[in-house]
């Protein structure tokens, strides 16, 4: 069944979108990631204009992370204070990101930047996760080994210290503000919640306990992506509500199935699969940038609007 998207102004197959939403939903349910970093490139592949894909994807992440945070709030694994600090950085970052996005759009370089961001981040995160999970698999075969804890002196020597009771931390507010800022910029430009960057940053840079990290990350992602959605809707008019709803419905159903599959699998196996998938998407995008394209010319609205 073809559905005409009012903002994207393209006609797409509704079942294809439901299916895409479902598959990414399954993956996000299995691996505990938002799935935006997979969905946005998939939307590019089926012909949604990149600007619409990025803005609409931000809207979809609001739904998935809100759903996730509700579950975490019940388990009391959300550090609201840390979340708020990250959020302040995130909102400033999102505003900067949208300004940057519009500037690059006027230069005609927005596609390139979004793709480059994807290649770099998918490559780095996928690669690190792959190595980490391979090590974890090996470690699980040699019982008795204990994962090492790192110490970060820099975080503790900065001013403006604050107590974060749920995380059990007494650190300066500057590092969380900076982490929030960077993730906010990325969220606005790439149309992702930034969970796959935020989570490692909170564990390794801020030293937060892992069980609090995911809920807190989701908590601030809701507000950052909601803010991004509103900015895109009011400045670029690129949020396609019909597209968002189609993706949401598929995603919600997929996430339920995914969680059930995820429970039955080993954590290391899951992470290796996810890393492989991330690297695959990264490879495809990198090839697009490096290989000679079949069409050297592209069309865009005049005047850089």
């Amino acid at each position: 069944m073809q559905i005409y998207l009012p903002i994207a102004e393209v006609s797409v197959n509704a079942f294809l979108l439901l299916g895409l939403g479902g598959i990414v939903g399954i993956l996000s349910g299995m691996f505990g990631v938002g799935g935006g970093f997979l969905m946005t490139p998939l939307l590019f592949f089926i012909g949604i204009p990149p600007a619409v894909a990025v803005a609409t994807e931000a809207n979809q992440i609001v739904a998935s992370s809100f759903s996730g945070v509700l579950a975490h709030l019940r388990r009391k694994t959300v550090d609201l204070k840390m979340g708020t600090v990250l959020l302040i950085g995130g909102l400033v970052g999102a505003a900067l990101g949208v300004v940057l996005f519009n500037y690059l759009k006027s230069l005609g370089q927005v596609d390139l930047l979004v793709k480059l961001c994807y290649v770099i981040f998918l490559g780095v995160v996928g690669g690190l996760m792959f190595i980490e999970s391979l090590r974890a698999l090996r470690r699980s075969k040699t019982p008795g080994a204990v994962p090492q804890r790192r110490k970060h002196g820099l975080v503790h020597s900065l001013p403006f210290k604050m107590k974060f009771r749920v995380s059990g931390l007494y650190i300066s507010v500057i590092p969380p503000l900076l982490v929030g800022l960077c993730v906010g910029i990325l969220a606005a430009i790439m149309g992702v919640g930034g969970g796959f960057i935020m989570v490692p940053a909170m564990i390794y840079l801020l030293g937060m306990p892992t069980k609090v990290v995911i809920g807190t990350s989701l908590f601030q992602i809701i507000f950052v992506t909601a803010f991004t959605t509103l900015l895109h809707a009011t400045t670029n008019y690129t949020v396609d509500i019909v597209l968002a709803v189609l993706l949401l419905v598929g995603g919600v159903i997929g996430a339920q199935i995914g969680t059930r599959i995820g429970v039955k699998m080993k954590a290391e196996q899951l992470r290796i699969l996810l890393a492989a998938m991330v690297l695959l998407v990264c490879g495809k995008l990198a090839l697009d940038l490096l290989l000679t394209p079949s069409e050297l010319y592209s069309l865009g609205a005049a005047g850089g609007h």
Partner: protein
Amino acid sequence: MRFILAFVLLVLPVLSSAQSEEIVLGLSRDEVAITATFDGTDVLIFGAIKRDAPAPDTGPLQVIITLAGPSAPITVRRKERILGIWANTDAVEVDQAPSFYAVATSAPLAESLSATEDLRRAISIPQVIRSVDAPASIENAESFTDALIRIRAGSGLYQVLDGGVDIEEETLFRGQITLPAALTEGDYKARIFITRDGIVVDEYETTIAVFKAGLERFLFELSRNQPLLYGLMSLAIAIAAGWLASAAFRLFLR
């Protein structure tokens, strides 16, 4: 694909006596509504040639039908390899290019239309795309308009339908133009020409209104006129869906 035969026979004004052949036109539809399930449609353009005197024996009668979507300026960008990565570099702004353009002819365009007539009435695709205002620094600016035509032709937005018009007894003609699913709204201008020896004998013009309808119209207008409300509505839907998913999860787990 279905036809809504809203048969519109148009009464022609009395034309100057110099003209011996006139077009009488019918359209299968004079409006196209883009609804949520829109996936393209056919427009049937048909008519007859009215004569006061026997047909002149100068050359065979040919019919050319064009259908043009609303025009807008467009930027054509060219990619170049920079540091091993393909990036947009040069850009050329085309003043006016129709979002959709189809030319259907009874015989190949070159045979049914002289170059002078094409130039005067802007019938073939290269003539329809208006002048290019290329910066002096860019060589080979025509390659940008060629690319525009190539890309739009590739996605079915620019069509050349040689032999797309049937003529019977030099009197009745019918042509069919397929509008693709990815359509922009606006007034689509249909022009019908009859030619003999490449010279236009008569010309007729009418419009087909293409517009978003129903929910599509409502959402599009809302996103443009009330962007904040539209954004908040998108968020409300997302939050509601997220809550529903969480509630459904709890039911499943119980």
